[in-house]
């Protein structure tokens, strides 16, 4: 809808730009037409942004929109609404749906569902292997040539564990500038029932765990495969301090490796699982405070490039089991900015320009989305999020646009609220 339709002009009045300067932004025909103080509104609708920070529209490298297959947990439309409410103008939809996004047709279907919803750009991620089975390459080239123009490939939810398959995938996607986004987790280093961080807490609780090393060994291997193939590896949801060390080394070598971290891994620790509440069951698992500190430092110094939500909605009954039997994952689209603002801005070293970098520019660059992640400047796409940086919000899991309620932030106070989101000049969210 909004995708191709021309939009009425909009004047964003008195916003604080990421660099701290104050300006009006005139948006027309889907682009930013003027930036400066005291612009004349003319016939444009005025959006009062006094006291609000204007960020380029946020880009999420990692969402699960559950459609097709689990429309009771989320649809592309409801996930898009949640994304817009979170300040996002583009999301990448992971391939682990049912059926899996492992063909051009499946990718185009997700693209079309996103366009029909019209609230964010929904860019499908293609599976690396057929059916996420880790054996036979999916039709990577056909997905790349499809209308969806898939460039990010991932078996997320599962690791591409076989080194030979990973090597071939990396070599193959070079032909069309693809990137393999790896869910780094060696399945042989933990039992099939692993469900939380392996450490003192899991030992006490009698829960089978994943050690950090199960992630670190795969990242180390993939870093060397990136060096060998010259192809791009993106590391999904980094969770351990050891992975940060490997990434730091890789970046120092100038290797084509990027990485993301989730909001929950920046704040929550493995202590949360002590009450066996499956709301906190997530993959990769919540880790100890030392890992959280290392992840924050890595995001601050650029070792980790981006924040990605790993928004993973689940129907209530899929969490109403014993911890080991419950589904993995937590919702996150609507709270991501508030968590980053609480952790990295209010209590951390970030300015809003840094937030724009890790939540918009970098993820757009990694995903190859040309019309996203651009600065708020004349001639650029009119994608933006207006944030009230001082608003304290107590999260209510029922006050959501998502169909699911598996919200780990329920009842917690966060700082920073998205007041409006604009996609190519059209307002997609207002609060």
């Amino acid at each position, binding site marked *: 809808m909004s995708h191709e339709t021309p939009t009425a002009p909009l004047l964003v009045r008195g916003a604080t730009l990421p660099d701290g300067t104050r300006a009006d932004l005139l948006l027309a025909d889907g682009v930013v037409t003027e930036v400066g103080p005291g612009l004349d509104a003319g016939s444009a609708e005025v959006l009062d942004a006094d006291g609000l920070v204007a960020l380029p529209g946020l880009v999420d490298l990692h969402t699960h929109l559950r459609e097709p297959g689990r429309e009771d947990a989320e649809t592309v439309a409801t996930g898009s609404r949640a994304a817009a409410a979170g300040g996002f103008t583009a999301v990448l939809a992971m391939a682990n749906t049912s059926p899996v996004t492992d063909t051009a047709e499946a990718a185009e279907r997700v693209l079309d569902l996103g366009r029909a919803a019209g609230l964010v750009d929904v860019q499908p991620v293609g599976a690396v292997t057929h059916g996420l089975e880790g054996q036979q390459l999916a039709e990577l080239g056909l997905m790349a040539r499809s209308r969806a123009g898939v460039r990010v490939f991932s078996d997320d939810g599962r690791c591409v564990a076989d080194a030979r398959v990973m090597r071939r995938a990396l070599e193959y996607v070079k032909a069309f500038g693809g990137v393999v986004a790896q869910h780094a987790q060696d399945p042989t280093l933990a039992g099939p029932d692993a469900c939380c961080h392996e450490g003192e*807490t899991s*030992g006490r609780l009698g829960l089978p765990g994943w050690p950090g090393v199960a992630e670190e060994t795969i990242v180390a291997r993939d870093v060397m495969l990136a060096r060998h193939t010259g192809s791009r590896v993106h590391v999904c949801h980094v969770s351990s301090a050891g992975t940060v060390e490997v990434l730091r080394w890789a970046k120092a070598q100038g290797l084509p490796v990027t990485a993301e971290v989730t909001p929950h891994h920046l704040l929550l620790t493995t202590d949360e699982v002590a009450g066996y509440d499956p709301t906190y069951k997530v993959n990769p698992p919540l880790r100890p405070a030392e890992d959280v500190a290392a992840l924050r430092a890595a995001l601050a110094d650029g070792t980790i490039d981006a924040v990605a939500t790993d928004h993973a909605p689940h129907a209530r009954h899929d969490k109403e089991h*014993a911890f080991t039997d419950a589904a993995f994952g937590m919702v996150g689209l609507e709270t991501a900015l508030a968590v980053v603002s609480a952790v990295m801005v209010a209590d951390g070293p970030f300015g809003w320009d840094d937030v724009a970098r890790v939540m918009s520019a970098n993820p757009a660059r990694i995903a190859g989305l040309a019309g996203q992640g651009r600065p708020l400047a004349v001639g650029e796409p009119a994608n933006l999020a207006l944030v009230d940086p001082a608003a304290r919000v107590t999260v209510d899991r029922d006050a959501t646009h998502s169909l699911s309620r598996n919200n780990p932030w329920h009842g917690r106070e966060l700082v920073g609220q998205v007041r409006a989101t604009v996609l190519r000049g059209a307002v997609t969210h207002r609060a």
Partner: protein
Amino acid sequence: MRKHLLEVDDLTPDDVDTLFATAAEMHDVQRRAVKKLPALRGRTVINLFFEDSTRTRSSFEIAGKWLSADTINITGKGSSASKGESLRDTVLTIAAMGVDALVVRHGASGAARRISEWVDASVINAGDGTHEHPTQALLDAYTLTRRLGELGDRHVVLVGDLTHSRVFRSNVRLLRMLGARVTVVAPPTLMPSGVDAWSARDGFATSWDLDAVLPTADAVMMLRVQRERMTGGFFPTAREYTVGYGLTRDRLALLGDTVPVLHPGPMNRGLEIAADAADAAQSLVLDQVSAGVAVRMSVLYHLLAGETA
């Protein structure tokens, strides 16, 4: 006493004293020709066992019957997830029949706690995955107390597959609560994750060397080792495990003939415990079983009769 018994930490030392005193009375009843007491007449106890169990389920069933409770067994193998029903739905269905206590055995750690959050009935954890088995620890400590007297400063050694043992997790908490010195022994692959930090915090010792520990033991508790663990690479062969960590005839001699030997069963004779040790005069294995009924009577009594008395 709290409404539920989910883990040893639900108990205070005073609760344990009370439970043991009542268990001793129940133990006397056990020796009578007519064993039935009217204490829980009209109350309903459901043994909800999602995992195979013979001894624990029978023990709870007899305990309930001797207290005149209506005791019903419900067994269902596999997780409710695999049947497409949530655990909450399964449990609410059963609780809706009108139940005073649910005795729950489940293959997943924390299952009893989850269930206690959904139902009004008292929940007794009869073993949740590799987490806890609090009535087993109570009956072990009760048995030891009757043999050794107060456990303060007594050195109790637990040996075996600690990683996968709920008996170990409950025992180490309770024995520490009662003031015993505890050493747990296992090969490094069968030590629970994070045990160094954990043992330092909770004040127990760990060792990979059984022979170094046995000479100072006041009691030895052998834990079951499943042969399947070999395929998981936890140890190379049964033979090698026995040589390193079994209570062999030689080690029994090292122990002397007065130090009590316990095993929660079922025993793998010849693997973690030699027949000579299992059948020795110092073996308390059958005392544990008999104490199990008395202790479970005591637990049921205090959780159910206590609230109306």
